[in-house]
Each structure stands twice: as C-alpha cells, then as structure tokens.
C-alpha cells in the first residue's frame, strides 16, 4: 500500500481548491508527475483491483483529503489474457470465436469488428439481409447492455429493488436472443461475409412482441431513474466530465455523448444497415435541454438509447429484404480465399459502451500477422481522472460505474491513515454509498 503511494503519479491533480470543489480537473495536469509527498490530512485509499468481468481490472489509488478525492491514479493488468497473441496463431474463422470471448456483453461487436476488418481487406461483399440481421442482433445487445447497466447503477446507489426490477426486464431480451441464436449471452451469430442464422417470420414476431414489452416498460424505467428525487440528488452534479476533457481524453460512447460530444460511429461512419436507418447521436440535450456531463446525464443518454434501439430494430425488421445471409457458406473455400488476401484493415463500430476498433494485418498466411483490439473501456479510463477529482468517497462507486466499465470496481479497499489501516471491503464501500442514499432520502422527505 505504502509502495503505491511512493510511486504514485496522478492523471490529474486539482490545481486549486476551486477546481476540486467543482469536481473538475484540467487535461494539462496529466503531463506533470506529482512530486510532493503525501502530508498533512490526506491519506490514500486503494480500491480494487481484481474483477474477473473486465479485460482491464482496475485498482484505484485515491488520495483523500477529508471526504474528498484529491488525487486519482489507477493500475490495470492482473488479468491480461493475451487474446491478440493467441489470435496470431489461429485462422480468421477460429478468431471469430476468440473475439466473441473478449467481452461477455459486447460479443457481437467484437466479432463483427474483426469480420469487418477482414472483409475490408479481402473485399468480401456482405449480403443485404445479413447486414440487417447484424444490425438487429447488435441493437438487441445494446438494449441488454444498457438495462444491465441501469441495474448495476441502481445497486451502486443502494436501490436494490430497482436493480431486481431492471434485471427482470432484461430477461425478456435474453429470451429473444436465445430464441434467435441458441444462446443467451455468447451468440455465435457473426461470420466473415455474413451471419450464421436467419431470422424467420416466427422469430420476427417474437422480437416484435418483446419490443412491445420494452416500449411499455420504458416509461416506468424512465420514471424511476429520471424523476426519483433521491436518484437525482445522488447523480446530479457529480462525476462531471467537461466537453473539453472528453475531447482531450478521447472518451467514447455514452460517456462522450453525455458530455456533449456527438460521437457515434452509427452516425459518423455508418456500417451494416445503419446508413439506411438514419441514426443520430443522442445527447442529454434531447431530453433535458442542457448538457452537464454528470452521472445523471450518462443515465439519461443510456435510457434514450434503449428507446432508439427499439425503433431501429422495428425499422430493420420492416426494411429487411429477402436473400442470402452469407457470402460464402463453405468455410474451407472462405479460408482459402482469405489466405490469398493481403493488406491492412480497420473494423470500427459502435458497441454499447462506445467505439470498438480492430486492426488486422493479413500477409498471405493462414493466421493474421497482427491483430489489435481496442475496446471502449480502454479510452474511457483516462476520463476517470477529472470525474473522480473532488468527489466524495461515497460517490466513487457510482462515478466509476457510470462509464460502464464492465465492473463495479469497489471489491476491496484499504485506507491508510497515519500508519493505521482502515480496511474497507466491497461491502463497506457499498454501505457508504447506501448510507448516503438513505440520509438523502430522509432529508428530501
């Protein structure tokens, strides 16, 4: 613990008390390593590190002054699985299965990004029907991910009944996905040059029915998150990421959009069936009329995106033409074609958490020469600096969770104060957050 303090360098240091009060940091701050030793009233708080759900499990080393966070640092590693290295020893069709296992939630996005990179190099034409099916499955995944996240956020705030309600809602989407692909989570749907399974009329009717359920439930979900005074009090004005910082740290996905950066690959560089669907990046302005870049705004953006996804799936089902669903059905022939392909390709698309990029380089061998995966959380790490600066300890879990980093980071925490250790485990950290909610509820009533 003490070692962590000594070599600690922060991504953002509050320049003056004012900045810390406002909960904001300056991007310039990151260039200067922190030289001063920890002194006076401050002590350090370590949150993390291991959570098996994320490629980059994160351990936070926070320096605390009183109740406020004065310095933010985090460490990754612990569970780097070397998936890219494994990929350079497999053929592209095998890699699809590997890519699906990068992230449990965004499995369609990773396999599709890889396939798009390879399709770009080899000039493979994806049939129109397959493009629509890809879009439908990706949007189902987005609804699933956002509703799952809403439950996690509610849990972090101490609203466990809301968590159970949202996760019960999520079951319907899992049932649809199971009926469509045979699996609830890892879908195995994407193939180079198309998709593996078709959507027939019965399944389409099933999807429509499920969407109707979400349309009805959406109002209630919005009511819970947007109108409840305690949730508003807990999330408004905390964890602020300004537009300037979001741009400087290249934030992606709902995190960037909540700060007013209208960045969405589905709008900026549409792929699959999105060019024909007229997608627009959603910012909090659409519902609130203003952009604050706080945790509340991130909740609003995700909720609005659930609604947007419902509309996109319905439109896709209506517009979807008949036809083939895959460019080349015989995997042997496909692999032979890919073996002759040479070049570099980039596959980009919008996952629920933000932009996914896969860089692939084929050199005329069976396995790709280079494969680099950039998951959205990778770019959403640095924005944690300005978000957490000046925050209260009790707000750390919800701020950290607000970028949807595939994890609730607070699984273990140790505080060192003047040589005495105060140990917070994840329960204690969570309890702090719940106590704050209860206290607020008492005041508001």
């Amino acid at each position, binding site marked *: 613990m003490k070692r962590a303090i000594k070599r600690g*360098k922060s*991504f953002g240091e509050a320049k003056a008390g004012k900045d810390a009060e406002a909960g904001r940091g300056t*991007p310039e701050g*990151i*260039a*200067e*390593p922190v030289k001063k030793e920890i002194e006076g009233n401050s002590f350090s708080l370590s949150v993390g590190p291991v959570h098996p759900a994320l490629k980059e499990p994160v351990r936070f080393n926070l320096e605390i002054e009183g109740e406020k966070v004065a310095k933010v640092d985090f460490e*990754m*590693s*612990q569970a*780097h699985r*070397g998936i890219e*290295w494994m990929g350079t020893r497999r053929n592209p069709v095998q890699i699809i299965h590997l890519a699906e296992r990068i992230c449990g939630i965004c499995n369609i996005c990773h396999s599709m990004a890889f396939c*798009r990179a390879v*399709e*770009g190099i080899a*000039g493979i*034409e*994806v049939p*129109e029907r397959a*493009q*629509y099916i890809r879009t439908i499955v990706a949007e189902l995944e987005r609804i699933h991910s956002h509703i799952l996240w809403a439950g996690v956020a509610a849990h972090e705030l101490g609203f466990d009944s809301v968590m159970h309600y949202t996760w019960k809602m999520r079951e319907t989407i899992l049932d649809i996905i199971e009926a469509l692909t045979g699996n609830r989570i890892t879908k195995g749907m994407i193939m180079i040059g198309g998709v593996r399974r078709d959507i027939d009329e019965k399944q389409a009717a099933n999807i429509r029915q499920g969407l109707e359920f979400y349309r009805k439930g959406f109002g209630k979900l919005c009511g819970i998150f947007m109108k409840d005074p305690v949730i508003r009090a807990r999330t408004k004005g905390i964890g602020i990421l300004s537009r300037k910082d979001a*741009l*400087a*740290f*290249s934030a992606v996905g709902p995190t960037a959009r909540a700060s007013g*950066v*209208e*960045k969405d*690959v589905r*709008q*900026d*560089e*549409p*792929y*699959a*069936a*999105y*060019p*024909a*669907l*007229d997608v*627009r*990046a959603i910012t909090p302005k659409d519902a609130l009329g203003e952009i604050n870049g706080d945790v509340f705004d991130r909740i609003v953006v995700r909720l609005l995106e659930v609604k947007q996804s419902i509309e996109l799936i319905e439109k896709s089902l209506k517009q979807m033409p008949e036809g083939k669903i895959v460019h080349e059905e015989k995997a042997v022939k496909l692999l032979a074609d890919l073996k002759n392909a040479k*070049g*570099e*390709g*980039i596959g*980009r698309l919008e996952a629920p958490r933000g*932009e996914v*990029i896969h*860089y692939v*380089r084929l050199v005329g061998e069976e396995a790709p*020469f*280079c494969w*680099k995966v*950039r998951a959205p959380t*990778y*770019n959403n790490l*640095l924005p944690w600096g300005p978000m957490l600066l000046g925050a209260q300890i009790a707000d750390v879990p919800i701020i950290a969770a607000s970028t949807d980093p595939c994890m609730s980071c607070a699984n273990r925490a140790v505080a060192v104060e003047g040589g005495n250790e105060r140990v917070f485990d994840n329960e204690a950290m969570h309890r702090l957050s719940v106590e704050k909610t209860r206290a607020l509820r008492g005041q508001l009533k």
Partner: protein
Amino acid sequence: MRPGDVLGSFKKKFGASVSKAEITRFENSGVGKADAGGDFSQGFFPVGKKASVERLWISVERYSFKEAVKHLCGLYEMPHFSVIAGCDLGETIELNYIFTLGYGTKFGELCVVLKVALPKKDLVVPTITDLVPAALISEREIQEMLGVKVQGIPDARRLFLPEEFPKGVFPWRRDSKGPERLVRNLNREEAK
C-alpha cells in the same frame, strides 16, 4: 472530411517526409437506400448505392512525426485518438497511430492512420501526450509490449504486464526478445 483533401494538406506541408500514402476504399460497408429518409446530402456516397468507407494511411518519417500529429490537430477541433497498433516487421517496428477526424457529422468521419517505422537498433519515438493526452495509455502499452522507448512520456510505468514479468521480454515482438521462450518453458512446466 474527404481523404483526398487531408492527404493533399499533408503532402503540401511535409513533402518528401511523407514516404508513402494510400487511400483504401471498402465498398459494401453497409446498405444505402434512397427512400430511407436519411440525409445523404453531404455526398459521401451516392444515393441508392451501397455505403462505402475510406481510410487514409500515411507513412511519415520519424523526424517529422510529431509535426504531422500537430498538423492533424490543426485540421479538426481535436483528433480522436483510438489506439496504437504495433507490428514487428523484422528489421523495423511499425507503429500505426489510428486517429479519426470529422466525428459528430453524418457520414463525415474519416479514419487516418499515421505510420512510423522505427529501426530495431534505435527504438525511440517522441511522445504525443502533450498534443493528444488520450495517447498516454497506448504509449505505455507499446513501451512494455514492443520495447519502444517513448521519449518524454509523463508516466512510464507498466500498464498491462504484471510487475514480476521478466524485464527484456516484449510480448508483441517476433524476434529473440519475444515471448516464445517463456511460452516454451510454460509448456515444460505443465509437462512435469
């Protein structure tokens, strides 16, 4: 953002130090339809045809690399930094800095890849975190994964590799400094 314009501005400013440049076009990236009610007025691809995507690949010499990033910063509000993809090509190590420009506009985004080739004898590249702060994580990654020294990096700690990982082994390398020996030993341990 049209790739031709961006490339033109690079060629005009840097001349010979842009050693190679290429615009690749991925046809059939998506379906395009005239009756979909989309705003295709920007002319990125013609109405009724399949949507296509273009990528711009620019190879720059190391001495003008930082200037090239600065030039990129001047072209748009703030270039969106994605990632650095590094390849060990034998004699050289090639770093692909992937940026996007023109985000926030419909059909207006362009992916620009700046390529820098570093000779194995002299693996040094200047940091770009003073221009694009987001590059810090990726620079830390290539430093530990490829053994490239990033000059002026504000935080040189390891990122993904654990602290006890042997020094002088770089997982993305394909030469004697790569992880092959580690992996062989791993199998031997398992056989026991």
